[in-house]
């Protein structure tokens, strides 16, 4: 196998893994808006209306971004959005850690009880690196978009 197809498969693998991660994260939250709003409020970063709005919209943003990445449609736009999400999550986690808050991460809704800490931060960093990798390698992404559209 030549270097180019291998590179392409690796790229595609990262894209699908990141998309699946985002899709699962959104899917576990989209029907639990009430509990998710409470989880967000634990971070003590936004006013009530902000927590409510994020709880309603964020899960669907994660689901749609995840699906676009998995199916290789609008890859760079989805990767930019994904990088923005992971950056925001990192800021929220770091702010909680800096203030010594012992709270649930809410990364995968109310089901997976992951406390804010090194594990949540590591997962977030991995997501951010993968998103930035996809944004930087956008030309390859465009090639995949084209191939996906073609067949």
């Amino acid at each position, binding site marked *: 196998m030549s270097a*180019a197809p291998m590179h392409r498969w690796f790229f595609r693998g990262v894209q699908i893994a990141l998309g699946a991660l985002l899709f699962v994260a959104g899917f576990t939250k*989209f*029907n*639990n*808006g*009430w*509990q998710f*709003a*409470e989880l*967000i*409020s*634990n971070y*003590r970063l*936004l006013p*009530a*209306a*902000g*927590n*409510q*709005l994020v*709880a*309603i*919209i*964020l*899960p*669907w*943003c994660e*689901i*749609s*971004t995840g699906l*676009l990445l998995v199916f290789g449609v*609008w890859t*760079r*736009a*989805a990767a*930019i*959005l994904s990088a*923005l999400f992971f950056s925001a999550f990192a800021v929220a986690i770091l702010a909680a850690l800096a203030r010594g*808050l*012992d*709270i*649930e991460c809410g990364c995968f809704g*109310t*089901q997976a*009880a992951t*406390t804010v800490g090194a594990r949540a931060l590591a997962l977030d960093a991995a997501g951010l690196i993968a998103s930035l990798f996809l944004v930087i*390698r*956008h*030309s*390859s992404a*465009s*090639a995949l978009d084209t191939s996906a559209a073609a067949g």
Partner: protein
Amino acid sequence: MNRPAAASPDSLKTDLFRVLAIVAASAALGICNNYFGRHPVPLFAADGPGALPERAERISTTALADEIKNRILLIVDVRAPENYAQGHATGSLNAPASDFLLHYKHLNLAPKFEAVDGVVLICDDDQCPAADRVTKMLIPMGVKNVRVLHGGWDAYRQSGLPIEKTP
């Protein structure tokens, strides 16, 4: 050979428009799903979910273990039913904060609250505005000695106090 193309301002602009389109479509889907959902989140409700009410009085697991021996306490678990089913304090009742008043009537909690020396609410963790909000609701109803378990379910689970699961 695939040669990486330089990102032109036009393509960047297109991608930014696509980002906005994804957010707008997702927002529309989210608002519709919330509107038609089982437990819609009240948007811009100052006292709704996501609002931070005043922190209610806390009770530690050690104090709870002592009080259980000498006084009649009612433990009310305000977590989601699926979390309650996975494990809860023995003898506790589940009245999720999202539907508290509905469960208050359904479980006939009013006479139960009157018959006990105190009520302890269990939430997921210590930063639990849901339990604080329920406390704020109960005090004007005349329920006395309402406290929230410090550390919530995480602390209870680690305390060695009796736990049961819903079959």
